[in-house]
């Protein structure tokens, strides 16, 4: 039942050289109707405007170089294929990862920039549907993912790795599944795909994709927690005291 899946295609192909199902939630042009497009664009523009303001205030003149490379980082990370339990392979969407590393505002801004560049330059997701894509993956995936992660993490304990791991895995999985639900809803409301087909195919498939997303996000966040915890957004308190050591040579 994976005929309903949107693909990021293109870029990712070059890394894997396989025709494994390339699944993400990038809606192409022509699939959504005017009301859905208008509403999702309005929400997305609001999100972008708020995020730009917050990021500008927080990072000031560091905003451009830092957000730029972080967007390039997410873009590069999305190209990597990894095996998902169950036999297929998938790649990262990165919403929750961006939220965990950069916080909700910078994270969703970075994700938005990635979607815009993918849509405009690589036709990976449509231009008119970009509002919907930003809404599904930027707002739901990154913003929602971050706050879910934060709630769970703080409930278990801010300075505990276990809290981070549990929070990240749940948030990453759920953000993918909920984004798929919204995507299916938008398609159904637009009258493009019948509701039950959209739901079963999109959501059924993304339950598995979400597992891959959660595994990779947890591995990444754990690595950063162990090596450079000061780089995490809302880093554990002990990390603030110790002076960071550079791992980079280039």
């Amino acid at each position, binding site marked *: 039942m994976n005929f309903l899946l949107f693909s990021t295609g293109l*870029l990712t192909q070059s890394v894997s050289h396989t025709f494994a199902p390339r699944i993400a939630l990038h809606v192409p*042009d*022509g699939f959504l109707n005017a009301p859905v497009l208008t509403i999702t664009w309005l929400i997305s523009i609001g999100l972008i405007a708020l995020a730009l303001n917050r990021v500008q205030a927080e990072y000031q003149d560091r905003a451009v170089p*830092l957000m730029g490379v972080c967007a390039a*980082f997410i873009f590069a990370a999305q190209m990597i294929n990894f095996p998902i339990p169950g036999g297929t392979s998938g790649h990262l969407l990165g919403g929750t990862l961006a939220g965990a590393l950069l916080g909700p505002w910078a994270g969703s801004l970075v994700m938005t920039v990635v979607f815009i560049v993918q849509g405009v330059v690589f036709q990976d997701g449509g231009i008119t549907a970009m509002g919907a894509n930003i809404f599904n993956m930027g707002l739901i995936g990154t913003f929602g993912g971050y706050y879910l992660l934060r709630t769970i993490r703080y409930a278990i304990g801010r300075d505990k790795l276990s809290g981070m791991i549990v929070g990240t895995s749940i948030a990453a999985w759920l953000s993918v599944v909920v984004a798929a639900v919204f995507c299916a809803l938008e398609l159904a409301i637009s009258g493009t795909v019948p509701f039950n087909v959209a739901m079963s195919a999109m959501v059924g498939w993304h339950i598995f994709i979400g597992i891959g997303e959660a595994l990779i996000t947890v591995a990444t966040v754990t690595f950063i927690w162990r090596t450079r915890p000061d780089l995490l957004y809302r880093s554990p308190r002990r990390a603030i005291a110790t002076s960071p050591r550079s791992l980079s040579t280039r």
Partner: protein
Amino acid sequence: MLLHIGAFHLDIDSHQQTPWHRLAPQTRILCVLLLLLATVLTPNGQWLTWCVYGAAILGMLLVSRVTLWVLCKRIAVEYAFVGVVLMGTLFREGGDVVWQWGWLQITTTGLTVLGSVSFKALLSLLLLNMLTLTTPVPMLLKGLAILRVPPLLIAIMASMYRHIGVLIDEFSAMRRAAVSRNLMGGSHWQRMVIGNMIGSLFIRTYERGDRIHQAMLSRGYQGIPTAVETPNTGRYDIAALTLTLGLALAGQSISLIR
């Protein structure tokens, strides 16, 4: 697929001298956006409207002298992914049943939706590919800046575009290192190693961001310049825009009349 990445040489036809290339980047963006919106917002089943748009787009493709072979290759790859989705639009209720096999049925409504959506998706892809084949990314960004997209967003996109290649190189180096050390064996290992790679890439990225910032400061960076250069548009661009708008409206009026 492969032609997208690597040197990131997307704009292979940007050095032609044609009427389309004489347009300023912001005019090209506006023309493409207008036609795109008109195509996408046309309700399902308005074949004549899309035929008009399709003919216009075909004309634009011929006028702009894009390399048709490359265009076809890109469309084929991009459309293969759209096509997978299209199958979902077919099986539905409503209208007359054309074909039935068990609970699977194809109805006239399903066929209309399938045809409409594939037509729209094809036209959109043609338009966008024409834009990116003929316009280099820096020019696109400049056009967007003139169209009042927030300068911070543009600056971030420009900075991202500049560093994608660097980060992809760095990532492939890490991947090569992992493979050469036999770290990509089982799937569990593979996921662990890729997770660690992404983590360490983030650390390097963050530090690279700081270094870039220092380098920018040392070259006198004082925040983004707010003033955009005055657009050098003339009557020619206005004429092109008017023509596109007229075309879009003509197509819409056809769909309203019928």
